[in-house]
């Protein structure tokens, strides 16, 4: 065991403790807090595994927005909904996970089949075919950062469908708020207004978040960053301002809000249709304009992701019903 594995082992141990606590902590509020901490540790692991795009996205989404989401939900739920877990469950879980993981590790270390050949021996070329394709066509993609090129050019279909998933989630959410009347327990879903310190912080943090989001969006074409990271940062800013009461309700009745929600998917679909009808094929950008097209799609997608995520996280009756 070499000393350079020490930070990895620390992170792994931390992550296992967080996962264990998030599942089996006696109090549900503790479990939620540990789940947020789990997100932070995962973000550190992404950084350790040379995945800065993911570290940025995880820090904003996994650790930030998911935390607010859970806390917000916990306020609406009774304190102890669950039956207390018996001790036998812990030992069962522990035994199950340990035995299965050890079996996997033993397999990984003894079997020199497909996985091991590439892991232990740097000489073997284990580069997957998709990867080589991506590397070979990077020059034509219009952007320099490989992850952005994959997201918005080579696998643009995935990203388009992902924007549609966000739209579906939001329309599903709207179905849960009946149109006729505001819910009677409306008042209980309010946040305390006495958060003076948080309001003061929000005033400082929000402009910084907006600037950082814009920077990440712009930088995404040449370095880690991009529409998702920027969108989730902006959503975090909106959520923070909304919770401290500095931002009025995002009213669904406003045409601009609805436009902002669908802008990303709409623009993406328009580009897809235009390239499909007059161009070389569905989502095949003309080489001369691909950089410009990718940046424009990203700008609209950032807007949509930011608004949709903030509605998903804190949307209440007054935000979602006209």
């Amino acid at each position, binding site marked *: 065991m070499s000393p350079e594995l020490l930070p990895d082992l620390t992170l792994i141990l931390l992550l296992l403790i967080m996962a264990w606590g998030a599942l089996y902590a006696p109090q549900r509020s503790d479990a*939620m807090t540990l*789940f947020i901490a789990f997100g932070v540790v995962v973000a550190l692991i992404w950084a350790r595994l040379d*995945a800065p795009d993911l570290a940025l996205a995880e820090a904003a989404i996994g650790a930030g927005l998911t935390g607010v989401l859970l806390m917000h939900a916990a306020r609406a*739920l009774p304190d102890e909904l669950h039956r207390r877990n018996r001790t036998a469950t812990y030992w069962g879980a522990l035994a199950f996970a340990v035995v299965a993981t050890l079996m996997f590790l033993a397999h990984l270390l003894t079997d020199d089949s497909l996985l091991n050949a590439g892991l232990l021996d740097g000489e073997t070329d284990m580069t997957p075919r998709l990867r080589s394709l991506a590397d070979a066509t990077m020059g034509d993609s219009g952007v320099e950062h490989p*992850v952005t090129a994959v997201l918005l050019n080579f696998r643009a279909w995935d990203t388009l469908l992902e924007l549609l998933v966000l739209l579906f989630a939001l329309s599903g959410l709207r179905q849960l708020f009946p149109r006729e009347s505001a819910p009677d327990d409306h008042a209980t879903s309010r946040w305390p207004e006495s958060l003076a310190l948080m309001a003061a912080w929000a005033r400082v943090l929000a402009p910084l978040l907006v600037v950082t989001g814009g920077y990440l969006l712009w930088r995404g074409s040449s370095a880690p960053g991009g529409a998702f990271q920027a969108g989730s940062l902006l959503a975090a800013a909106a959520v923070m301002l909304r919770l401290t009461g500095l931002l009025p309700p995002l009213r669904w009745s406003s045409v601009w809000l609805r436009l902002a929600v669908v802008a990303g998917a709409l623009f993406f679909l328009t580009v897809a249709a235009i390239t499909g009808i007059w161009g070389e094929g569905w989502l095949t950008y003309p080489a001369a304009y691909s950089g410009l097209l990718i940046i424009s799609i990203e700008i609209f997608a950032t807007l949509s992701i930011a608004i949709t995520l903030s509605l998903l996280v804190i949307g209440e009756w007054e935000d979602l019903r006209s």
Partner: protein
Amino acid sequence: MNTLPLVTAIELYLTLGIAVFLLSLHGLMTLHDPIRRLIAVNLMGAGTFLVMVSLARRSEVPDPVLHALVVTGLVVAISATAFALRLIIAATKADRRGGKPEP
């Protein structure tokens, strides 16, 4: 000397991904509280992402295809989580009203 193969960081993270997945799979099957089960599903997702990102790190320059897939996965996971939480809240409210669903 070299009887035991040296464990690399990538293999450790790969195993960690499997461990987190299995632990939360067990949690999903045995826990009763809906919020905890939702957390368990999220942890299973995190375990899967860990496996994918470890596999992406096998070569000197990490694989952008897997990274892009995980970025997509993160956003889909949070939209699903947000919707599931609202469903849990709606179900709990319906229960409190005497087991009848909302009109």
